[in-house]
């Protein structure tokens, strides 16, 4: 017969009360039971949660609110599986947490495309998706899937949305004509000294500095000239922001009048009625985001969730909510008028009008350039 822990402790207490057990043995056994219970609690909780919930970590703010409202809540209502959510401001932050946690602690990540995919692959934390369980993957743009497949023939992530980091400007201070004329040069325009912002991220800073001096961001010929331009922007900038919420705060409060900015966040500000214009200059930095499943995750549940998220009805609702176009192929799936008007939307499905970072080129330079950017951002 199998005894429950409660029954065992009750019997132990009875023996002690009846005098069948001396005090020292009783205390020793009770302490052992308490220690066992204490040590097993974290794992027991996780084991109990397995099969009933999936862990998701994303960028927070309006983006995650849209994903929660249009994907997770309907998914939970349909399947009973709960999606437990966390947020991060910088993806390296979540990679650090993943490195220090056990497989399965973190499961699905709203990741920043191929540039970051390499980091997860290098760290050995990626999984292998069974694509047969994600039939809606067939509707996803092939040009978005291919870069991932080049790195790992068996996917660990599905592309989910894309956007650009263009120029956002306060239309009460800068006219659309001026923005168009100056383009990336606006970020180093002494006229707006002290009112310039920028994303505190190496790739964005190097990308826009390269554009400003006429270099190809995917084949930089003179990195020292790029760093000089980065310093120029730094000296004129008021603040380099580090999260979407901070970007929206700085722009909406008028602390800055021009910055490079995420297209979806700018669209959200425009929806709120702020006088903010958006411009994608030639060679504007395009990026994609994916839903990455980590090693140790409950794969069947995660694949089911991804398939639900890629369902056209869900993906379209999320896209409209977060103001980023979905990864659905517009030649296969009829998208809404609202999505077709979103910044960065590519109606051809070829993605040829967008300039993405070459993952191999940037991965090769990532360590050295990140270190240099960290120094420059601190005045070096």
């Amino acid at each position, binding site marked *: 017969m199998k005894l429950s822990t409660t029954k065992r402790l009750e019997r132990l207490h009875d023996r002690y009360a009846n005098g069948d057990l001396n005090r020292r043995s009783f205390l020793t056994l009770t302490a052992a039971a308490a220690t066992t219970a204490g040590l097993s609690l974290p794992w027991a909780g996780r084991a109990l949660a397995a099969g009933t919930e999936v862990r998701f970590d994303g960028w927070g703010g309006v983006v995650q609110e849209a994903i929660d409202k249009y994907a997770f809540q309907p998914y939970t209502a349909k399947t009973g599986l709960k999606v437990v959510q966390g947020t991060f401001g*910088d993806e*390296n*932050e979540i*990679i*650090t947490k993943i*490195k220090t946690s056990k497989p399965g602690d973190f499961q699905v990540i709203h990741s920043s495309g191929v540039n970051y995919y390499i*980091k997860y692959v*290098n*760290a050995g934390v990626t999984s292998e998706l069974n694509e047969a369980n994600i039939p809606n993957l067939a509707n996803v743009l092939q040009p978005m899937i291919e870069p991932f497949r080049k790195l790992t023939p068996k996917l660990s992530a599905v592309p989910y949305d894309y956007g650009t980091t263009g120029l956002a400007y306060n239309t009460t201070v800068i006219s659309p004509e001026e923005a168009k004329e100056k383009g990336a040069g606006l970020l180093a325009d002494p006229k707006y000294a*002290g009112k310039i912002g920028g994303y*505190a991220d190496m790739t964005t800073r190097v990308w826009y500095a390269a554009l400003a001096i006429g270099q190809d961001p995917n084949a930089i010929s003179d990195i020292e000239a790029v760093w000089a331009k980065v310093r120029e922007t*730094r000296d004129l900038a*008021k*603040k*380099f922001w580090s999260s979407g919420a901070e970007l929206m705060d700085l722009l909406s*409060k*008028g*602390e800055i009048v021009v910055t490079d900015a995420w297209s979806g966040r700018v669209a959200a500000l425009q929806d709120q009625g702020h006088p903010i214009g958006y411009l994608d200059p030639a060679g504007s930095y395009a990026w994609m985001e994916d839903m990455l499943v980590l090693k140790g995750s409950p794969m069947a549940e995660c694949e089911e969730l991804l398939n639900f998220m890629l369902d056209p009805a869900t993906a379209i609702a999320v896209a409209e909510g977060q103001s980023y176009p979905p990864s659905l192929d517009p030649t296969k799936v009829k998208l809404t008028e609202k999505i077709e008007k979103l910044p960065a939307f590519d109606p051809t499905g070829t993605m040829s009008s967008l300039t993405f970072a070459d993952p191999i080129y940037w991965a090769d330079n*990532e*360590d050295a350039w*990140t*270190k240099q950017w*960290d*120094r420059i*951002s*601190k*005045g*070096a």
Partner: protein
Amino acid sequence: MYNPRLAWMLVAPALLLLVFFLLLPIAVMAVYTFFTFITAGVEASTLTLANWHEFLTDGYYHGFLLKTIRVGALTAAICGVLGYFPAYFIWATTFKHKWLLLLLLIVPFWISFTIRTFSWIHILGEQGVINVTLLKLGLINAPLQMLYTEGAVIMGLLHFLLPYMILNVYVSLESIDRTLISAARSMGCTSAQAFREVTLPLSLPGLAAGLLLCFVLAAGSYVTPQLLGSGRDALFGNLIYDTIMGQLNWPMGATLSIVLFVILGFFAAIYTRYMGMSQIVKGLGG
């Protein structure tokens, strides 16, 4: 009667906690300083002195270390000046609900530290209370640049650390035998002389304990410079954050962490040598 075995048994849980949650993690960090960085997020256990060599030969790190010590010392000194008077007032007041004054000191701790720090953005920002008021009064034509400066960082640190200083000085004042002051007065001292000759010297251990606490906490801070300062106003803690969380270079991040730990430990050790740790314990216990 003193029983050494019982004493060890009683102290064992605390010792085990210290070993597993303090000494062991520090030891692991120390070992990491000798690991080899391969690429972002990947390191090898091949032992190397490269991280220490980089720290010892790169002026970038030394500059930030000196700046961190300077900001920490300045913050602690201002805390000392600003904190002594409220502590003295609470100690000297005849207000019968003195506990209320002490409670007011603790109230800020009920609000999240991050939110308290963020609140300065709404005070010092271009659209903040100070700039808006000055602009409306016509005292300035353009907003003053107060936010994202070293001054804003020090202000944020003062806001966070002042209660620690006041509590330390107050505890020290409380332990003074008031009859000594009466004796000084009866022997002809004026109030100011009694303060200078009796109260101040006897409260110095509390002041020194507060200075050390404020210095260590300020020099080890990361959130305040991140939120209220520009990149140039970063402290050593921000360098550690960038190295570990941005560059994903754990071996170098561990090296910088150990450096900061040793430097702050050095100051704490000097204090312990000359002042004794009991003052800090008293201060923390209120």
